[in-house]
């Protein structure tokens, strides 16, 4: 189908237009067609195991909600949870990265300080 707002060509079972964000599917799709709403479960597990656990865990909870709502036919709810899962995955990734960068800087500063006091 083509997006009614911006004209981008989309999958027939697309729920949201990737071009402009227009919602394409108001209610549950026809029987047997599962709407294509990402739940970011893979990313959530990855950020959880690569160490920023609280936010990664939140993303996994939203990933579960996405699939639960898809099964229940609650498409707007699933899109909402999908967005939250995405946000929390990125927050987890960003915080994990920031913590490591800060720590490397502190270590370097500490090493520089130690060598300066030894001289």
């Amino acid at each position, binding site marked *: 189908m083509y997006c009614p707002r911006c004209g981008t060509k989309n999958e027939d079972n697309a729920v949201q237009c990737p071009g402009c964000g227009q919602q394409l599917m108001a209610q549950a799709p026809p029987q047997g067609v*599962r709407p294509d709403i990402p*739940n970011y*479960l*893979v990313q959530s*597990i*990855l950020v*959880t*195991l*690569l*160490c*920023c*656990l609280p936010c990664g*865990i939140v993303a*996994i*909870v939203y*990933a*579960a*909600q996405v*699939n*639960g709502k898809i*099964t229940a036919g609650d498409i707007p709810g699933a899109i909402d949870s999908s967005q939250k899962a995405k946000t929390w995955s990125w927050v987890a990734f960003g915080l*994990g990265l920031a*913590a*490591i960068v*800060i*720590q*490397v800087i502190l*270590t370097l500063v500490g090493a520089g300080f130690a060598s300066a006091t030894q001289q």
Partner: protein
Amino acid sequence: MQAFKKPFFLIGIVMLIMGAGVLLFMYNPSVSSIFPPCPFHKLTGLYCPGCGSLRALHQLLHGNVLAALDLNFMMVLSLPFVGYGLLAQGLRYFFDIKIPIVFLPAGLIWIIFGLIVAYGIARNIPVSPLTYLAP
């Protein structure tokens, strides 16, 4: 096959993954200091569910599956799922090639959630059988 989208992004990601793989193969995170220690462990002294995952990847790259399982079996077990998921998403994003994306029922995701949380708690309990879960 149509020309792939966003070639520089794709090349960047492939180089990043290969670079990380080479570094992880050459340097053992448990003896080398080029990998920063986990900030969470440094601050709290606790093991999170991801603790030992870099060391486990290093052992896996050297074919030591048992050593990897000993360091972080959650990481090793989730690797096929995570690897396939990333592959499916990557093929879709860059090449428009559609291999099925695994749809897990919500109940199963809740079980995975429970397992990860339980794993994170259990490996911090210093009682005999549970100590094997610590990295």
